[in-house]
């Protein structure tokens, strides 16, 4: 029996209106997230993945605008909420660990105070003792010693700061956690530790996680399903096993082929050409200029996002 989706994104469109034209950062994105599921949204720079994360939380600022689409969070259409209601929903129902967040911890506040801020902002009143207990418990759940509560951000290492950010994100026990490039500035050993912390935290809360990033390896090892974004569109969405054993979309195939392996030495295979400018997309399929199997159909019409195999979605004419 499949559980109903905790998060459903339908037809989300986000444009940035610049003097030079509209930048179509996210075009008709549709996907759903089941409870306790881990989804990876992978794309290179300019693919629109960070825009997606911000849009789900309605954190797009002008000149960006959510043009169309619905985001259903546990049965509520987030797009219909007022600003104040949305503010309450953020962190309490759906939390985000933004990109570079470890560098946006307030440098003059101790970790304890930053956590207390979160609770105060969401109307949770705590006595000093309750606060202390909650903070300790929270830090412990992310693998930090209780003493960290009294430290300033500059006294913590990169991995510890990131875990503090995870603690802030889960402080109100949200149902969905969106992590945008959670480990991009961290060393590989620390990266594994932080991701394992995130996995543990997710299990404890019974929450779902969306990891937004560009590291296919990280995604392969951590998530259950992978969504590949290219030029603002979702081009493939399949379980992680399928994506890496039998990728459907040519971009996914070529991307995986270009990744250096530790198994054996081989030739270097990059994807020729460059990703398109989001305000000047080519007609038809956005990938056709770089696709080895592009046909006239690809050049003229935009492929639909269809379920090619059970639970495997792809937008490509050439299947």
């Amino acid at each position, binding site marked *: 029996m499949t559980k109903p989706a905790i998060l459903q994104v339908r037809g989300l469109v986000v444009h940035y209106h610049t003097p030079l034209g509209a930048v179509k950062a996210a075009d008709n994105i549709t996907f759903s997230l089941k409870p306790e599921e881990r989804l990876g949204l992978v794309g*290179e720079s300019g693919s629109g993945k960070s825009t997606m994360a911000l849009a789900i939380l309605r954190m797009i600022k002008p000149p960006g605008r959510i043009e169309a689409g619905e985001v259903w969070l546990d049965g509520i259409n987030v797009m219909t909420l007022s600003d104040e209601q949305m503010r309450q929903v953020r962190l309490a129902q759906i939390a985000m660990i933004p990109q570079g967040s470890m560098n946006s911890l307030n440098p003059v506040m101790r970790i304890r105070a930053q956590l207390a801020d979160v609770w105060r902002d969401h109307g949770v009143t705590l006595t000093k003792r309750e606060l202390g207990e909650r903070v300790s418990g929270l830090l412990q759940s992310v693998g930090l010693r209780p003493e960290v509560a009294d430290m300033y951000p500059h006294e913590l290492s990169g991995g510890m700061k990131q875990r503090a950010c995870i603690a802030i994100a889960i402080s109100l026990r949200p149902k969905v956690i969106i992590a945008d490039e959670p480990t991009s500035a961290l060393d590989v050993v620390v990266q594994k530790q932080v991701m394992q912390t995130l996995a543990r935290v997710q299990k404890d809360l019974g929450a779902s996680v969306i990891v937004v990033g560009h590291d296919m390896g990280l995604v*392969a090892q951590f998530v259950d399903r992978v969504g590949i974004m290219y030029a603002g569109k979702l081009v493939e969405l399949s379980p992680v096993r399928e994506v890496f054993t039998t990728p459907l979309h040519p971009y996914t195939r070529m991307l995986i082929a270009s990744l250096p392996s530790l198994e054996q030495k081989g030739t*270097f295979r990059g994807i020729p050409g460059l990703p398109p400018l989001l305000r000047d997309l080519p007609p038809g399929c956005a990938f056709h200029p770089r696709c080895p199997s592009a046909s006239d159909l690809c050049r003229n019409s935009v492929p639909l996002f269809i379920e090619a195999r059970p639970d495997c979605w792809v937008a490509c004419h050439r299947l």
Partner: protein
Amino acid sequence: MTTVLEARHITKVFGGGLFDRNTTVALENFSIAIDSDRPSITAVVGESGSGKTTLARLLLGLVTPTRGQVCYQGQDLRTMGSAAWGAFRRDVQVIFQDPYEVYNPFYRVDHVLTTPVAKFRLASSRVQARALIEDALMAVGLRSEETLGRFPHQLSGGQRQRVMVARALLLKPRVILADEPVSMVDASLRATILACLRNMTVERGISILYITHDLATAYQISQNIVVLYRGSVAEAGDVELVVKNPQHPYTRLLISSIPVASAERTWTTETVAGPASQAVGTAGCRFADRCPSATSPCQQSPPPLFQTDRHRAASCYLYQSASALSVEEMVKVFAEQASNHPWVYPAARPVMSEDR
């Protein structure tokens, strides 16, 4: 064996000034020799705090070592005259990590190519200079009409990085130090730059020191590898041996932490080592506080490099039965030409007088 660039027992300590009691030993007693007879690609792999960036800056003469010497053609950089520095700046080139910061946003990308041509007097006329630049751009797979005349923000990260490689080539160097050349470039564009670098060695006989934290690209591109941990060498040797069968506990930790982009889950094993401590100036092995196999000799004195294979050495007391190498002998374990490499190196390139 003509050694072009050599580090002899270099140590670099930061801090420790009049009011600063916190000293950091970025690099400790490190030696490496890059020779030009058998051009090859050597990877120096380490995480942040390993000392790899400090090593690059020391080898380029941008900082001076606290102890030890950096020698160009046998001469200590500190005692070189301006003529020798000129030759050094031509023979040893660098590619930096950030493909945007290396460009002055005020000028078009041509500036970064025309400056060395002018300063080193590589061409006697504008026409000749233009021809040189076009050749260099072609060698990295760029078309001059698509590249020249543009501002840095109009090129992609991959293109900008390749222009930097072209710039390095203009001076016909013998050594290129590549400091994280692809870490800030998108995954699909990295392969082109790596192929380009490999061509430098294969077709032009340039030795490359590839400095990175990314073990996978290091494995793909290099022949030999040096793994640094907090300023000391943990393991060194033939990259196939070190990566496929790591011996030093740190190398094992590193490799087991790398997320592999495949359907197979390798991350399921819990990491065995603890977090790095902030402690400074440990007496023994740098890795002892995190090592699962640490014993009491590990805490007392740092282990030397034990040569455990013909083409590999690890500095760990687990292998103390093997013969110990002194620091400058580390290069002896470097493989010259392993048979399972898909590409063959050219024979020694003689240094022509017209080249200079």
